[in-house]
């Protein structure tokens, strides 16, 4: 029995040591908290997101694809976004009861009953159908906690200039992923740019760049209602 305990201790020790090596920078957390506080206080918001994502093509070469998204949310249960890019043009409408995904290229759409708040809807639609909403990560209510949980090393790396704007630069890493976040050094401390590098997958990158933030804009409810364009077809959807 003693031998068994000894063997377990020997095997477990390196993992415990590894776990204890987590390095969390308090300044980085302070900045992320402040950013999340501002986002959590918003009753409505709109912004523009330009993003790029790397994908492996049939020849296993990396291809970069670009997207431009316009997003508007009104709390707690209204969301609309439109995305145009070289991999397709689509939009989401969410009115608190139904979520519709419409493909402009295929002129077809999926309408699903949805939960009654934005975050639960986004999470549910991703989990069940793999729908990805533009920059949704930043709107999770426990964003900072999520980062702290998922990454071993979170560091504040000083201020950098993005588009002529001074930003706080934060890097979070774990063995699989490197995430870099630029937060505007302004009163509002909103996200400016994010880069995700998949270290375990050919260093594929996702980059998102925020512009045109509008805080608490007045938005008419009608923009969250989907009206099928002429000839648009309601199609079925396969759950994951």
């Amino acid at each position: 029995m003693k031998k068994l305990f000894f063997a377990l201790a020997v095997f477990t020790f390196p993992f415990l040591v590894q776990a204890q090596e987590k390095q969390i920078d308090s300044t980085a957390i302070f900045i992320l908290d402040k950013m999340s506080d501002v986002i959590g206080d918003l009753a409505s918001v709109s912004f523009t997101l330009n993003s790029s994502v790397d994908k492996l093509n049939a020849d296993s070469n990396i291809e970069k694809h670009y997207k431009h998204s316009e997003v508007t949310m009104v709390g707690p249960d209204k969301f609309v976004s439109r995305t145009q890019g070289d991999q397709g043009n689509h939009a989401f409408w969410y009115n608190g009861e139904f979520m519709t995904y419409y493909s402009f290229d295929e002129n077809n759409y999926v309408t699903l009953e949805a939960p009654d708040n934005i975050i639960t809807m986004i999470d549910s639609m991703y989990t069940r159908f793999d729908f990805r909403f533009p920059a949704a990560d930043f709107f999770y209510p426990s964003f900072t906690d999520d980062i702290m949980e998922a990454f071993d090393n979170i560091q504040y790396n000083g201020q950098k200039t993005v588009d002529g704007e001074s930003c706080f630069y934060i890097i979070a890493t774990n063995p699989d992923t490197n995430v870099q976040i630029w937060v505007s050094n302004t009163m509002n401390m909103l996200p400016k740019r994010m880069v995700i590098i998949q270290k375990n997958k050919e260093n594929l990158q996702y980059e998102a760049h925020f512009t045109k933030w509008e805080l608490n804009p007045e938005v008419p409810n009608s923009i969250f209602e989907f009206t099928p364009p002429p000839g648009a077809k309601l199609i079925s959807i396969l759950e994951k």
Partner: protein
Amino acid sequence: MNTYLPKLKTYAGLLVLFLALVLPLKSIKAQRLGHGVSRGGGHTMSRGGGHTMSRPSSRPKATRTMPTRSTPSRSINGGHTKNKSRNFSKPTTKTPSRTANKKVSTNRNNSKVTNRKGSNNAPKLNTRNKKTSNIKTKNNNRVGNKTHIGNNNVNINVNNSRHNNIRNTRVRSSSVRYTRPPYRYGGHRYYCHRPYYYHPYRPFYWGPVWHPWGYFVTSLATTAIIVSIVNDDDDEDEYHYDNGTYYLKTEDGFVAVQAPVGAEVPSIPKEAEEVTVNETTNNYYYGGAFYEKNAEGYVVVPATAGTIVPGLPEGGEEVKVGEVTYVQFGDTYYQPIQVDGKNMYEIVEVKAE
């Protein structure tokens, strides 16, 4: 023997404990980052859950107070929540220490996404009677629209279960190696030889003698023949075949159905097209059915993955599978493609990951 049993249990228990300590728990990925805490998947330091952040254990616990900020009731995300402790022993940057311990950890009960106010675990009533999409699962259970009350117009598709037998829509694997990487979705890989090229599904019309699935007639022509097929339950199903269309007898007449795999008929309509299965095999395609020629005539065979067909009959259903839209007939998925400028379909090979 009796003395070994308790020892064995002890060893097994220790092994489980060891594995629990050593094997990392993969957080579920949401959107592009994992959101273990938001989604209720992670433990939190504020609950004393033994988190592994670096900090001296001797440090006194910070007083937990409720935040003084108030979140607007109509916040876009219900307000920022902080469950993990923000007590840092020393900042690792040049930032003054007064900022480091300023934050206090809060412990809101509504921090988890799934537990938030108004979370939607219970199905809602579709009071507006809006048409919604059918939700399909990989085992073909339709779960869509089951929660509707007064469900009189929500099902967009005709129920083809009678005419669209799963047994007759199973796909044979392609013998040709795929050079394109598969499309991955929901734990399955979808293989095709040609790239996805969307075009709307419009059922193909094979001429006046062909009847789509579900077509009803009170009587058949004298040229109709009877074809008996042994089904999965070892019972014999009796089909009536006439000019490329198969019928099942009902109380009032006959209804057109999908061609049963294994049916052998002496002839098929001249409109049947020859389709390439692989370098050595060709099938004949008519009315959504694939035939192999033999000495006696033609035998209905299962579809073979990779086969390209020019048109699809009625009874299919356009289904969004991740980022692509396939046409589904039972277990068969057809990918829209383009060949020499013409819209066609390729049969998809689906494999579990």
